[in-house]
């Protein structure tokens, strides 16, 4: 219910939300949780395992129970914490993990079967019989697993990723964080202050305290106004710092649009990577519970959450409040509630020496031992010494003490230290380079202590940043000591919950220890404690204390499990912002792209490039028809293809020839100016890295060509070789791949086509180059061929690429030729036995591909020594051969080869097929393959088997060059 005059919600701006189909009134500034409490909704979810009715436990991002699905126009976001989701007009949310409804959930039968569903149940039950696993157990577990549901559609929401840089990152904006930001901001440092909730202030807004004799929120308002006036301070609300990484880098998730009606182009979330020279963790502390029988009823929540709901949102979850604790925090809550006119029936304080409290009864040395009210708390049972009595109450606020939020300090392998005084873990110093921890996160719990610690952390940080710390007067605030007597679990026989989200009880932890899973890491995995969306924020310390008790060790000896990022759940959509669909990787387009698409060419991806697959003509219904036609066209007439994707590296310098001799297996320094040579490059381990042609344009000027796939790789390799082995050489190189548009013109008509385009006959020998001017544009003409026909490649600056491509296409078509795509290009090179990276795939040597004679004996080169190692040459190697099926049957790349009559087993494997294509020239399927000792086996019949695609064909082993093996056409 609402309490008049309390809270910071805007009562002038009512909004209507929908929860489980019910329309509910709320105010701007409410969270979904506070709106539900205002409307007396008690059950908001069902627990994971036993499907027990659950209510709101906390008021923050650590909430384990109130997880809901938020339904958007085009998306459904599961596991949204109702305590984090802010309301807006039209917000639609529904409860999850229940069927058919929240009030009646069929799966609640699990709760009755609880004795059989103890920790380790899964591991013991689903092990046998083994054949049940796939058919029965797995589907069963999959159906029961998970909490919320996704829409099943693509998430087309807008997300953002961003970088930010600052001198000082302050994480948390309670008294410590605010004081730190003010101090550093006044000194002129670039400060980013991150606050997880919608408003700066932290517990100053929740506790109804005083600063400088006035309500603390007044001081917060002044501080916010001052920070807003400082241009060097950036306050980021709704931003959770989720991880601490190397070099002062932090991950942070900002809720940008989740708290308002969707707007076009407004991101839902932004994932920030913040790089800070220094950081101050002022993330506060989380209140923890006390385990007792049936402590999970709706209506039982953290005492501090009651304060937050009352003071920030003006709501209380019931009429008759009881508090149970082992420290003084319950007093603060009781005073707030009573001052707001809420009845506090009693304070149950486990400490025998607990102080009295005016206005209510304090039961000292007492504990809660049970509760009643399945769909909402009605009554609690209390034991005080040897007497037991009942208290009628609909709200029970619990405080088992406070756990400093140490998480970020542990993200780089730091371990927190146990403080017996606080009965809590506190951060170890220096766990994150450059980070200081201040305030409650460091175990300082008074407001005065937090303000002072924040100011001090800022001063130390400013000194480290070479800035002068200003004199900042500390405002006056309470400085009460923290008094606690540890109590983790009330002894009893019933189920007492530790981890609400994953339904882990005190008994489960004890059972884990009893069954030998006594290490805290083993206990976690055995019981699933701490493995739910809240990652144990509400339960881990209590669970390990119970484990320590069960194993007879102390808490520090038991230790904690590992804290890993993210601190709170981060949607994958935010981390992958922009990477959906074509955003996944850059797209590279040829200058001829539009011209190819104009002709209906389907584009295929070659690395990042988009290249035309084939150019369909009217009447052609399959790609094969187009491909066969294009192959025949090149063999009989003339074809034009865009080959600009091949890597081009401009190499200059007096030592360029020497450098090339070192990176290529064959000799280049002897190549005359104006000539082109084919070269083979090895990796340091002796395997083939790449192949291509290199041209000598002038005495000290060369142009290297690489394959499309290895363009970047070769550039990197050259840089490495240059810097590591030849740094003193007079050689410089740079990629010119993008500068030149280059087109292959191939076929018996190639010379005529070029003559018409150039206005003169090219007059160029095979493997020659010349500078040309084509229609007024200076370019380069190479006579090289990847098709086996008389072939040329003409290069012009990319700005003229499209125009030249269209021009060459038109000329080819008037000659009866035309464009050919990647499919035809592939068949042409298979017919000719030319290799691509299908063959030089990283595990083949120059010997394997029949090019061992290209490794010059007269000089050294990268990879030469390694290529001569035993096992790298000889009859035992799989060697490149051609394959021709004996029947007119398709063959497949990826198939394996076997000797006829042998069993088709791995041991009998003789090799594998790398490339196949249908050759219209030879009217046969052709393949390239690696066959053991293959060069000595030409003429043999071998069995090709592809189990995946059900192919089993006998093939003749041949030389890999099927077409024009003398190269007469090439050199014509």
């Amino acid at each position, binding site marked *: 219910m609402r309490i008049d005059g309390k809270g910071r919600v805007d009562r002038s701006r009512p909004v209507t939300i929908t929860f489980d189909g019910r329309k509910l009134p709320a105010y701007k500034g409410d969270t979904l949780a506070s709106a539900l409490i205002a409307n007396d909704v008690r059950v908001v979810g069902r627990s994971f395992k036993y499907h027990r009715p659950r209510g709101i436990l906390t008021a923050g991002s650590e909430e384990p129970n109130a997880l809901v699905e938020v339904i958007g126009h085009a998306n459904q976001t599961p596991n949204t914490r109702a305590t984090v989701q802010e309301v807006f007009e039209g917000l639609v949310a529904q409860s999850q993990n229940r069927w058919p409804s929240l009030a009646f959930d069929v799966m609640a039968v699990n709760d009755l079967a609880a004795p059989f569903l103890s920790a380790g149940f899964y591991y013991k039950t689903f092990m046998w019989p083994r054949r049940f696993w796939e058919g029965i157990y797995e589907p069963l577990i999959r159906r029961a697993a998970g909490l919320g549901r996704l829409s099943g559609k693509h998430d087309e929401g807008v997300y953002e*990723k961003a970088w930010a840089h600052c001198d000082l990152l302050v994480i948390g904006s309670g008294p410590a964080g605010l004081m730190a930001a003010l101090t550093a901001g006044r000194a002129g440092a670039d400060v980013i202050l991150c606050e997880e909730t919608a408003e700066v202030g932290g517990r100053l807004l929740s506790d109804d305290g005083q600063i400088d004799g006035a309500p603390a929120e007044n001081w917060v308002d002044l501080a916010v106004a001052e920070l807003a006036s400082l241009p060097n301070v950036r306050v980021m609300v709704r931003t959770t710092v989720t991880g601490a990484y190397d070099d002062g880098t932090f991950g942070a998730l900002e809720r940008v649009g989740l708290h308002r009606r969707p707007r076009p182009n407004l991101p839902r979330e932004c994932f920030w990577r913040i790089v800070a020279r220094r950081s101050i963790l002022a993330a506060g502390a989380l209140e923890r519970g006390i385990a007792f029988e049936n402590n999970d009823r709706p209506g039982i929540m953290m005492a501090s959450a009651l304060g937050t709901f009352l003071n920030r949102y003006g709501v209380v979850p019931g009429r008759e409040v009881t508090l149970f604790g082992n420290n003084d925090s319950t007093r603060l809550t009781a005073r707030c509630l009573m001052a707001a006119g809420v009845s506090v029936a009693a304070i149950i304080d486990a400490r025998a020496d607990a102080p009295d409290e005016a206005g209510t009864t304090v039961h000292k040395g007492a504990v809660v031992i049970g509760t009643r009210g399945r769909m909402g708390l009605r009554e609690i049972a209390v034991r005080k010494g040897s007497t037991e009595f009942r208290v009628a109450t609909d709200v029970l606020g619990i405080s088992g003490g406070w756990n400093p939020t140490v998480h970020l300090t542990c993200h780089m392998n730091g371990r927190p230290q146990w403080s017996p005084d606080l009965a809590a873990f506190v951060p170890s110093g220096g766990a994150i380079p450059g980070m200081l921890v201040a305030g409650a996160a460091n175990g300082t719990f008074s407001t005065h202590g937090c303000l002072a610690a924040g100011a001090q952390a800022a001063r130390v940080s400013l000194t480290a940043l070479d800035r002068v710390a200003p004199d900042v007067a500390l405002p006056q605030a309470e400085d009460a000591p923290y008094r606690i007597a540890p109590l983790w679990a009330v002894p009893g026989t019933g189920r007492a919950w530790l981890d609400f989200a994953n339904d882990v009880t005190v008994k489960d932890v004890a059972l884990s220890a009893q069954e030998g899973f006594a290490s805290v890491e083993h206990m976690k995995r055995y019981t699933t404690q701490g493995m739910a969306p809240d990652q144990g924020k509400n339960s881990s310390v209590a669970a390990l204390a119970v484990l320590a008790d069960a194993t007879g060790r102390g808490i520090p000896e038991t230790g904690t499990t590992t804290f890993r990022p993210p601190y709170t759940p981060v949607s994958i959509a935010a981390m992958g912002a922009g990477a959906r669909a074509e955003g996944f*990787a850059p797209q590279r387009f040829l200058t001829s792209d539009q011209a190819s698409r104009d002709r209906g060419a389907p584009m295929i991806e070659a690395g990042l490039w988009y290249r035309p697959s084939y150019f369909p003509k009217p009447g052609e219904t399959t790609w094969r028809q187009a491909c066969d036609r294009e192959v025949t066209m090149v063999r009989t007439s003339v074809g034009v293809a865009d080959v600009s994707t091949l890597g081009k590296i401009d190499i200059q310098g007096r030592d360029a020839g020497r450098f090339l001799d070192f990176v290529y297996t064959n000799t280049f320094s002897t190549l005359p100016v104006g000539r082109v040579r084919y070269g083979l490059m090895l990796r340091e381990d002796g395997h083939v890295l790449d192949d291509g042609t290199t041209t000598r344009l002038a005495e000290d000027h060369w142009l290297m060509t690489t394959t499309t796939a290895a363009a970047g790789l070769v550039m990197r390799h050259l840089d490495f070789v240059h810097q590591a082995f030849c740094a003193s050489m007079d050689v410089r190189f740079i990629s010119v791949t993008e500068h030149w548009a280059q087109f292959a013109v191939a076929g018996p008509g190639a010379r005529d086509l070029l003559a018409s385009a150039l206005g003169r006959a090219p007059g160029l020998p095979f493997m020659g180059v010349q500078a040309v001017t084509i229609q007024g544009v200076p370019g380069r003409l190479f006579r090289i061929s990847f098709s086996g026909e008389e072939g040329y490649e003409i290069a012009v600056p990319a700005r003229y690429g499209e125009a030249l491509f269209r021009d060459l296409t038109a000329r080819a078509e008037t000659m009866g030729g035309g464009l050919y795509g990647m499919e035809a290009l592939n068949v042409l090179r298979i017919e000719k036995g030319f290799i691509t990276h299908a063959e030089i795939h990283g595990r083949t040597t120059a010997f394997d591909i029949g090019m061992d004679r290209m490794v010059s004996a007269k000089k050294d080169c990268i990879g030469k020594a390694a290529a001569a190692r035993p096992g790298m040459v000889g009859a035992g190697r799989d060697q490149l051969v051609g394959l021709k099926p004996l029947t007119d049957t398709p063959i497949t790349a990826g198939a394996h080869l076997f000797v006829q009559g042998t069993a088709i087993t791995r041991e009998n494997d003789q090799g594998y097929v790398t490339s196949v294509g249908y050759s219209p020239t030879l009217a046969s399927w052709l393949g390239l393959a690696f066959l053991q000792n293959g060069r000595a086996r030409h003429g043999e019949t071998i069995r090709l088997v592809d189990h995946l695609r059900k192919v089993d064909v006998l093939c003749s082993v041949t030389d890999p060059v099927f077409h024009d093996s003398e190269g007469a056409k090439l050199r014509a």
Partner: protein
Amino acid sequence: MPDLIAKPALGTAAVTIAATTLAEAALTTITAIAPYPGGEAAVTRALHPMGLAFPAPNTARTAGNATLVWTGRAQAFLIGAPPPADLTAAVTDQSDAWVTLTLSGPQARATLSRLVPLDLRHATSGQAFRSALNHMPLILIVDGPEAFRLMTFRSMARTAWAEVSHALTLIGARSALG
């Protein structure tokens, strides 16, 4: 005069969102200049008449229409003017290898913070960086605190435009919230 039509990488009209403008720069001359070992001083002498000198890492200098920008180890790009004839260095035409986008206005830095991991809080004219524009190679030239030149591979121009304009669009939607 060539008979072939020269085309820019994009040919896209400029967009302005939140008073910040993304545009494609006109095609110009870009020449890579890579001095040989010990040759930087000679290159500087040759560039002197243009009012330029071989740049230190992460710097760019503009004189008249020409900008000389550091682009890597022993490498600089001369943009907007032909190189001097008497240059002793590896000289390579890069004019058509790059698409240049200009981004200027009050949200330029915020937009770049979505795409580029650099700390541009104190960006001033004369700075230049080799970095990454999301997954694309980037040469970033700072022409002023709110004015940037972004150069990436010509073949990636469409992706670069899509990603920068998308980032700017989202910034615009945020700015509209006030």
